[in-house]
């Protein structure tokens, strides 16, 4: 599939995207909040450009206050942009017609505690303009899918955080949306529940549903998303596939039987693993690796193995954010 690269002239960040008509199209989006009596300005979004294609799974990462939730809220029409444009299915974000094809799970969502799980989905199904027939058919099925079938007549007030998240996910999927936007979907969910939610999201992806996830759990994004955005202080500072982002800082991992005496990691741009049995060469240059091997062999060190070191998405994320913090 051809790749479109759009570049934000303000920051020079390129944002690759598949060419098919984007379901989400954001251009030069700014959002500034004024807070307090002195109307102190907080720049939540500063010139965000983004296109998301049909069927894509996009993960949004960033530290607290990066503007991730604001970005999603602008898309949903919950927050009004200060300038720029945000379009869903070609219609301006905030247009109720566009939201008909969308499912949303907000962060820290609250359902009325006096409703049962079934009643909750019934009310939100009505609000999504679902017919009686569609609600009758989908509600029990979805409750089963998220593992709440036996809790359908229990009041939501008695649910644990994890159960609330599952119910929230069922609510987001109730209208069989073409785009699902999830803000911290596995927050408070136990590991088994997280796996179930991930499986559910993968299955959604396979059906061609566009999935946008905002999460602090980088491993989750890594496992579900095709593409990742990293936001910092209201800007997209990096965008690419998980592999592209994880490759940042890749190098070599050399496993040894023992470490040579007086080994100087800084000489090789290397670090030692905690086990003391492996050296990680950060710069990834073959010359450095070869020089290291020569040195190790001279010192009679047995090389047990050499492999390409792939930094995790988390490591890439932390490096990027740290470098941004240092730069500013």
């Amino acid at each position, binding site marked *: 599939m051809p790749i479109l690269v759009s570049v934000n002239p303000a920051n020079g960040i390129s944002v690759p995207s598949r060419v098919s008509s984007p379901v989400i199209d954001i251009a030069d989006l700014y959002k500034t*909040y004024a807070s307090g009596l002195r109307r102190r300005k907080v720049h939540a979004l500063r010139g965000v450009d983004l296109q998301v294609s049909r069927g894509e799974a996009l993960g949004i990462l960033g530290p607290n206050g990066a503007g991730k939730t604001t970005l999603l*809220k602008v898309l*949903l*029409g*919950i*927050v*009004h942009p200060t300038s720029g444009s945000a379009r869903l299915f070609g219609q301006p974000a905030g247009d*109720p*017609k566009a*939201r*008909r094809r*969308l499912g*949303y799970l*907000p*962060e*820290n*969502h*609250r*359902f*009325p505690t*006096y*409703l049962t799980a079934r*009643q909750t989905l019934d*009310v*939100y*199904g*009505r*609000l*999504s*303009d*679902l*017919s009686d027939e569609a609600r009758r058919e989908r509600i029990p099925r979805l409750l089963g899918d998220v593992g709440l079938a036996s809790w359908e007549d229990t009041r939501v007030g008695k649910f644990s955080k994890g159960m609330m998240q599952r119910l929230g996910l069922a*609510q987001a999927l109730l209208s069989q949306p073409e785009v699902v936007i999830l803000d911290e979907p596995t927050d408070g969910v136990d590991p088994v529940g997280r796996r179930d939610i991930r499986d559910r999201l993968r299955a959604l992806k396979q059906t061609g549903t566009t999935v946008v996830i905002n999460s602090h759990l980088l491993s989750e994004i890594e496992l579900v998303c095709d593409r990742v955005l990293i936001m910092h202080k209201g800007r997209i500072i990096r965008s690419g596939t998980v592999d592209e982002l994880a490759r940042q800082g890749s190098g070599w991992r050399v496993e040894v039987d023992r470490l040579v005496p007086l080994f100087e990691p800084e000489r090789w741009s290397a670090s030692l693993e905690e086990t003391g049995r492996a050296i990680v060469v950060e710069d990834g240059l073959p010359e450095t690796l070869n020089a290291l091997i020569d040195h190790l062999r001279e010192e009679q060190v047995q090389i047990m193995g050499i492999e390409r070191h792939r930094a995790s998405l988390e490591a890439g994320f932390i490096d990027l954010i740290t470098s941004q913090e240092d730069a500013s």
Partner: protein
Amino acid sequence: MTTLSGSLLLTFRELWAMRLTQAMLVIASLAWLLLSFALNMDVVEGSLAAVRIFGFDTTPTDGVFNEDTGEWMSQALSLDKFMIGINTFVFGAAYFLGTLLGLFATMPLINGFLEYGRIDLLLSKPLSRPRLLAGHLVGVWLTVLVLSSYLVGGVWLSLSFKTGVWMPMFLMAIPIITVMFAVMYAVILSFSIITRSSGLGLVITYGLIFFSIVLASHNQIVPVLSNTNAAIFMAFYHVLPNFIEVVGVQAQLVEGTVVTSWYPFISSLLFGFVTYGIGFFWFSRRDF
């Protein structure tokens, strides 16, 4: 239409889940059960010869001196006056207590509606903001209409069957209570939307109700004020809701006399329209 039904259903369920709504239904039931079974009246030639509550005679025993005949006579109550008295009492209780308690009861409703995590979920649904707010409002208004109809209608039926005196104008209490509640609800709702504090909204609403007691005495107060102060006072009188004076409108309706002025009711209604307009505007514009 389905989206609106969802919004209505959510409001109804929330109101029903509140104990105060259920308590109001119980109180209304007790009120007309009391009038049906505990209140006994002996009506002789259109006059009330005896009134008993729970079997205890409460007929006035004091004699009345008839100046024409120069004799002391036993006091007989006019049935119509008795009915007007009872109806006015029920209206007053429903109007004041019902509105004050009702506004208090809706505070958590508004809190819940505007709460983060709830409002963003509602706003993500395919209905416009004015429609969402309208669904909430209609739900509240209908609930108040049902509660006031249940109380006033029940009392009216009970008394009318018992006495044979039918005073249909008493039923005007239903729209008056509902509309005036809606007017005062406009204040609490709009202030809650603007400030995101339903507590502040409630304080301001109660403040306006109590200030309307002062405004109702405008005929006595204005003459003692300077021209400037009198103009300011009358500006408040015309702009703010005249919650107290509306009681006079209902009293005249029940008595069957001509209503001397609908102005307090109409100006309150206009105040409600403007306040709802501000609330809707702000709700449509603000970020959540």
